[in-house]
């Protein structure tokens, strides 16, 4: 006796269609794109669109609430003739280079110190993150009070040490104002370096240190020939991030000095904001913001190539 189940014709078709759809979805070329679609759409909407719109704006004379007219590279030419633009360029480079170096060296020191064993290690590590966790605007307001000659703890200390009253004008003197924003940025960014490098340090296998110790290597040699080479990729990545954030820094300067005194602390981001939002010149503002692009792009490309080669 043979038992054969009779298949329903409709079902067969449906199953076949479903399997073919499943098979199609199963194809790697399709599936990978499908998985990528959402992040890509996300990137296109939130990064791609503003970026290309920014480029479009920079090529226009576009007063706020008016239609734009295409002017080619005129905005960029205007910037080249603007003395403040050059001041801003120098400021931004000085600010970024000095803070990055300070944060790199300081952060490495911090990570090495945190990598030792001591009591309440975890608590100290957590506390170290505080400057990074507090919203920048809040911590900057605190600094604003600390740097006010009348209320400053810094000045009170200096005066008690014999400095003539009321002590230095941190935000009124152009050089000291630059020093102030560099110090505050370093204070804020150090934990980021410290914690990231600490994570890197902990991945270094201890056997390497043991082997080096057996070979008679001292502390400096262990650092120079084991720690530093193994940490280099992480240092590079942290630096990359830090440079991007510092180069485009806005909040700190906007709250502390608003670019003053006499544009001594004016950076690309704050200047672009003043032109675009204050003066209502969206095109010119966009062209100032875009002036950051070549330097950052060059840096990113150089670092990426270097990392690939590693």
């Amino acid at each position, binding site marked *: 006796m043979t038992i054969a189940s009779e298949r329903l014709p409709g079902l067969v078709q449906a199953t076949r269609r479903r399997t073919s759809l499943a098979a199609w979805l199963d194809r790697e070329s399709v599936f990978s794109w499908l998985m990528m679609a959402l992040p890509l759409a996300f990137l296109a909407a939130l990064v791609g669109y503003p970026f290309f719109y920014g480029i479009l704006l920079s090529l226009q004379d576009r007063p706020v609430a008016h239609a734009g007219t295409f002017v080619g590279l005129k905005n960029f030419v205007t910037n080249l003739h*603007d003395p403040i633009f050059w001041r801003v360029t120098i400021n931004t480079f000085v600010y970024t280079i000095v803070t990055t170096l300070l944060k790199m060296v300081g952060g490495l020191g911090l990570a090495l110190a945190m990598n030792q064993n001591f009591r309440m290690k975890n608590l100290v590590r957590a506390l170290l993150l505080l400057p990074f966790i507090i919203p920048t605007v809040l911590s900057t307001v605190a600094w604003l009070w600390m740097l006010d000659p*009348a209320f400053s703890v810094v000045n009170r200390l200096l005066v008690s040490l014999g400095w003539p009253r009321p002590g230095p004008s941190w935000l009124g003197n152009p050089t000291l104002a630059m020093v102030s924003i560099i110090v505050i940025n370093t204070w804020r960014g150090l934990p980021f370096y410290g914690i990231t490098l600490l994570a890197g340090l902990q991945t270094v296998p201890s056997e390497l240190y043991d082997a080096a110790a057996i070979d008679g290597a001292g502390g400096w040699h262990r650092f120079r020939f084991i720690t530093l080479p193994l940490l280099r990729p992480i240092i590079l990545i942290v630096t990359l991030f830090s440079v991007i954030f510092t180069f485009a820094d806005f909040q700190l300067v906007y709250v502390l000095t608003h*670019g003053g005194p006499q544009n001594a602390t004016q950076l690309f981001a704050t200047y672009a904001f003043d032109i675009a939002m204050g003066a209502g010149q969206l095109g010119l503002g966009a062209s100032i913001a875009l002036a950051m692009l070549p330097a950052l792009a060059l840096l990113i490309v150089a670092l990426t190539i270097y990392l690939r080669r590693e």
Partner: protein
Amino acid sequence: MSVPATGHSTTRRGFLSLAASGSAAALIGPRPAGAAEKTITILHESSFIKPFDDYVMNTLSPAYEKETGIKVNYEVTSVGSLPTRISTIAETGSGADVTMNGLLQVIQFGDKYLDVGDIAADIGKAQGGWYDAGREAVLVDGKWKALPFSNIGQLMNWRTDWFAEVGVKKFPETWEELYEVGKKLKAKDHPFGFELGHGFGDNHGWLYPLLWSYGGAEVAADGKTVVIDSDETARAVDFCRKLFKDTMVDDCLGWTDVSNNKAWMSEQISCTNNAESILWFAKREFPDIGKVTDQAMNPAGPKGRFHLLNSISHSIFSFSPVKDEAREFMKWLMAPKQLGGWYAIADSYYQPLLHGYDNAPMWNVEPRNQPFRDALGSAHLPGWPAAASRQMAESVAKYVVVDMFAKACGGTSTKEVIKDAETQLKGIYRSA
């Protein structure tokens, strides 16, 4: 932002549905025209004087609804965010129907505002006529793009007790006299403090008037010819440098708008330039300081006495679905009964730009505020004698004139700071 009262206690579910419908409404945009219940939304910056905002929400708005059946929604935005909010509304063509303007918005958004010249003419006729400053603040290409509401003047604030210590009972009439007093006061450890940094108002508030009172200006009346490089400007710069060096605290160069208030309340300075808020705040929080705080018009220079116009005004968006209703509402709002009440609630923090209020009782509430009224006749926009323009807004945003003075105070030569300012101004006004 105002939250509508629901009239019943809020449950969690109720709150969620309210929040959902609120965000849905925000997505959909303004109510379509012709809906049964009409609403006019006014956008306003949060006032330093709280009863001022409350007066609209609790008195004016219900009164108008009772009279006409049209709801008035008073939307308050935080201080400093008004330009961004107006930008958003003007760019997207939806949001509020009427908006408050600060100094620069009338020029920047004039294209999106209704011409309200007819309403302005009627108001002027009925209430003593407009101050010239009112006209200067809202005329764009000869059209009234807003109804002037008031000035929030910047004047001299001085410590009567410390001035008396050096024998001065009345505020000095000229900049040179003020300088002499300041020298004496600094020697007694009571320096002056005038903002020379990158704030929004307290710097421009005295530096443009100083420039004008020596006969200088950034641009000629044609709005195109840069005239900053003059002997008059040089004299103003030289004066500013010595005023800074011999009377002020060094820190002024880095000040923003909060700094002089902070220095005043902590008794660090004996004279500054600020809005009425210093006296208000001192009276409320530091009564002892409030008692010895007085106010005066800016001192005169060789070419006269000047003040900065820091006006606010109201405009109707041309794309508003209820623009005709908004016009009627503005007529009602600017009528003596409503307008007078609204001014009075804030004493004289908002100085009317209509001559009809020159002798209003509000000026007697705090006689120390009367100089703010007397200053209206000599108040101008930063680009004066040129009419308001985009270029003027750019020059203000770039702090050209402020930094010219500040750099001189920092030690740069007069010739150099004027050259720098001229280069910048020529770049800005080239497009005029």
